[in-house]
């Protein structure tokens, strides 16, 4: 049954039909008709951000905390270009988004009109797909198709660029019976022969390890449940990427912690020494593999990924399985249960003994202090004091992000939101806004750095406007800490431009926004102040003054392999100059 309505009304109706509850956006000339259509209804709630990049990050945070696609609405020209960083971020981390951008009317396209830009041209490389809608007849299909494309296969951002004249034009709207794309059909079921071969390989493994990633989270909570089942059935150790934290409970004994550049000693050595690697929903990112020609030299590799282009991209695998994690895990669990032959318990025990030896190295230990707050201690206390409330944690990008990943422990999926692939400073605050909207009663914390937070600070205003009691916990070391750490490693400790000069008074700043500011520089007061933060039902900026010189360890330096990690006590034990660790070739890498 079709109805006559304008293009702008179709946009809102399509959002309603898709069950969208929140739209993150910012109005402007080329989207005024859509904002007018928003005005006449109450089902879709608009969240007014203060910058379009913030809108996209908020939608990302919302998507990851809720498991539903995030929706963004911005105007043409600067509205669209401001959204680019967020779209690129969502593309790298495979976050399902639909971003509707206004465009100048069709007859002005190409004339360098006011606030015109080639949105589909600019966003082509940082979206999964995009559309320029030039006819009202196409609009209902495109809107629904955008949601299908964003969510199916490997998820990603989809842009719908909508010229203003199409927004005004009247046409027929009907919800398509199925909002599938006419040809886009990603493979979700894995090839059974390959899955059987994988189970066979796992059953004969002597030193197996699961290496899982964001694909498990993206596949839904069912995938996490199946992963837990499979890991527990097999008794194998499991490590996860930054994006995959929470899919397997960090409190479990089989969990080795995060792997990669700042991963744990036991996780990275298990990767290095394993004979069978089971990669589920991760993509052999360069932060994970370290030096490629020395990556996991003894292993046969199984790789489950919904995106065929992830397979054999940088690391060759022996058994590729293209499919959705939940579907493949379901088959794996079933086959493992049926399989008579199980992994040799004796050999598995030996493997575990070895791992326990590495674990006993206690790689995350650090020297605590009574005078200054160590950043690791701050995150640990934050975790201990909030873990009962299953908080949603977002981060910015840098040292604080790695400390959060190392010392905050996640037992459930969708509780951890960070910018992994794109590494976008400024992600955390708007993402916390999105996460809090998805879970109004939950505790939402943005673990931040004093440099990153200033990149999207304006979104404090959004938090205030919508009464979102997010907690911004700044590990303030007055440095762009990760830049400083790399300058120590690569550039003789010449801290070129990495010192945070002229910092604002974050307490007063919080108050200026109408929120609550708390400062703490004394380890003895930390617990009480964190409790004070949690107990305030308003947005808080917590300025945690931490040790200015602390570096993030363990670390696999650039161009090194998993078994060449630097540990926290590296300097203390050997007295080696940290600046000499990375060779000339390693210095070229990022």
């Amino acid at each position, binding site marked *: 049954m079709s109805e006559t309505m304008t293009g702008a009304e179709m946009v809102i109706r399509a959002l309603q039909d898709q069950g969208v509850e929140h739209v993150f956006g910012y109005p402007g000339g080329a989207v005024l008709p859509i904002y007018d259509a928003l005005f006449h209804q109450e089902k879709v709630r608009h969240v007014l951000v203060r910058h379009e990049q913030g809108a996209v990050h908020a939608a990302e945070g919302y998507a990851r905390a809720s498991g539903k696609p995030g929706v963004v609405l911005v105007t043409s020209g600067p509205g669209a270009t401001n959204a680019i960083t967020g779209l690129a971020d969502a593309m790298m981390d495979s976050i399902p988004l639909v971003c509707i951008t206004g465009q100048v009317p069709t007859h002005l396209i190409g004339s360098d009109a006011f606030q015109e830009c080639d949105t*589909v*041209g600019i966003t*082509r*490389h940082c979206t*999964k*797909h*995009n559309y*320029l809608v*030039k006819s009202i007849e196409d609009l209902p299909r495109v809107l629904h198709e955008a949601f299908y*494309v964003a969510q199916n296969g*490997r998820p990603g951002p989809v842009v719908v660029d909508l010229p203003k004249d199409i927004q005004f034009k009247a046409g027929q709207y009907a919800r398509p019976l199925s909002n599938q*794309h*006419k*040809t*886009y059909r990603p493979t979700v079921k894995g090839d059974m022969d390959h899955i059987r071969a994988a189970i066979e390989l796992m059953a004969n493994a002597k030193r197996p390890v699961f290496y899982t990633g964001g694909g498990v989270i993206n596949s839904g909570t069912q995938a996490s449940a199946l992963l837990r089942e499979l890991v527990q059935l097999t008794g194998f150790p499991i490590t996860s990427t930054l994006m995959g934290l929470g899919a397997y409970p960090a409190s479990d004994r089989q969990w080795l912690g995060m792997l990669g550049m700042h991963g744990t000693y036991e996780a990275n050595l298990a990767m290095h020494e394993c004979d069978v690697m089971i990669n589920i929903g991760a993509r052999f990112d*360069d932060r994970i*593999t370290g*030096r*490629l*020609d*020395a990556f996991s030299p003894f292993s046969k590799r199984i790789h489950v990924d919904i*995106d*065929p*282009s992830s*397979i*054999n*991209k*940088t690391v*060759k695998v022996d058994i590729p399985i293209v499919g959705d994690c939940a579907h493949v895990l379901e088959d794996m669990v079933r086959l493992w249960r049926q399989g008579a032959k199980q992994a040799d318990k004796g050999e598995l025990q030996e493997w575990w003994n070895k791992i326990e030896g590495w674990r006993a190295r206690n790689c995350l230990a650090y020297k605590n202090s009574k005078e200054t707050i160590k950043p690791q201690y701050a995150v640990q206390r934050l975790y201990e004091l909030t873990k009962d409330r299953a908080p949603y944690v977002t981060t910015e990008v840098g040292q604080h992000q790695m400390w959060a990943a190392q010392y905050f422990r996640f037992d459930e999926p969708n509780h951890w939101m960070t910018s992994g692939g794109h590494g976008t400073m400024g992600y955390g605050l708007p993402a916390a806004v999105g996460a809090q909207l998805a879970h109004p009663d939950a505790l939402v914390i943005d673990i931040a750095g004093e440099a990153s937070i200033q990149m999207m600070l304006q979104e404090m205003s959004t938090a205030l406007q919508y009464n979102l009691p997010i907690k911004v916990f700044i590990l303030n070391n007055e440095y762009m800490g990760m830049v400083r750490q790399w300058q120590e490693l690569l550039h003789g400790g010449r801290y070129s431009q990495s010192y945070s000069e002229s910092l604002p008074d974050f307490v007063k700043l919080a108050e200026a926004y109408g929120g609550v500011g708390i400062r703490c520089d004394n380890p003895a007061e930390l617990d009480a102040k964190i409790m004070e933060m949690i107990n305030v039902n308003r947005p808080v900026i917590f300025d945690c003054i931490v040790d200015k010189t602390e570096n993030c360890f363990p670390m696999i330096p650039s*161009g090194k392999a998993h078994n060449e990690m630097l540990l926290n006590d590296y300097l203390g034990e050997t007295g080696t100059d940290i600046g000499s660790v990375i060779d000339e*070739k390693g210095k*070229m*890498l990022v």
Partner: protein
Amino acid sequence: MLQMKTHYPDATRVEPVNRHTLAIVVDNEPGVLARIAGLFSGRGYNIESLTVTETQHEAHISRITIVTTGTHSIIQQIKSQLERLVPVHRVVDLTLTGEAVERELCLVKVVGKGDHRVEAMRLASAFGARTLDATLTSFVYEMTGTTDEVERFIKLMTAVGLVEVSRTGVAAMARGAEGIM
């Protein structure tokens, strides 16, 4: 032989580089060619030739023929990356389907008098080229053949007064009864 790039400058593997012809069936929608060309430039792949036209008008489907070079793993990656694009229906590596039929058309203009002119006519007839235009001082020839034949034709014509070349790039099709739609 080409050194394959990795993240790490000293971790290089040497694999043979081959020329592959890919047939890509796509929805003929605005921007689809930019998407494909952009994928090649953005990820650092080669395009030796690219040909595209709508082949099924009712269904708005185009067929793109791309000739590219790369190691086996790069060609695999190109294929996977192309298949990831939403408007791409199918990617067929014609080089792997057996000896595909490949043809290219070129137009060449030669200008000259006397012996050069006579030689140009002889060469054209030897290559089976058609004369599309003639003046007292010039010819425009149309020649169809494999890329190698076209190259040879152009090289010879250079010696007898070639002034302009226009080439279509490769159109290709697998041999045998099976069709790609």
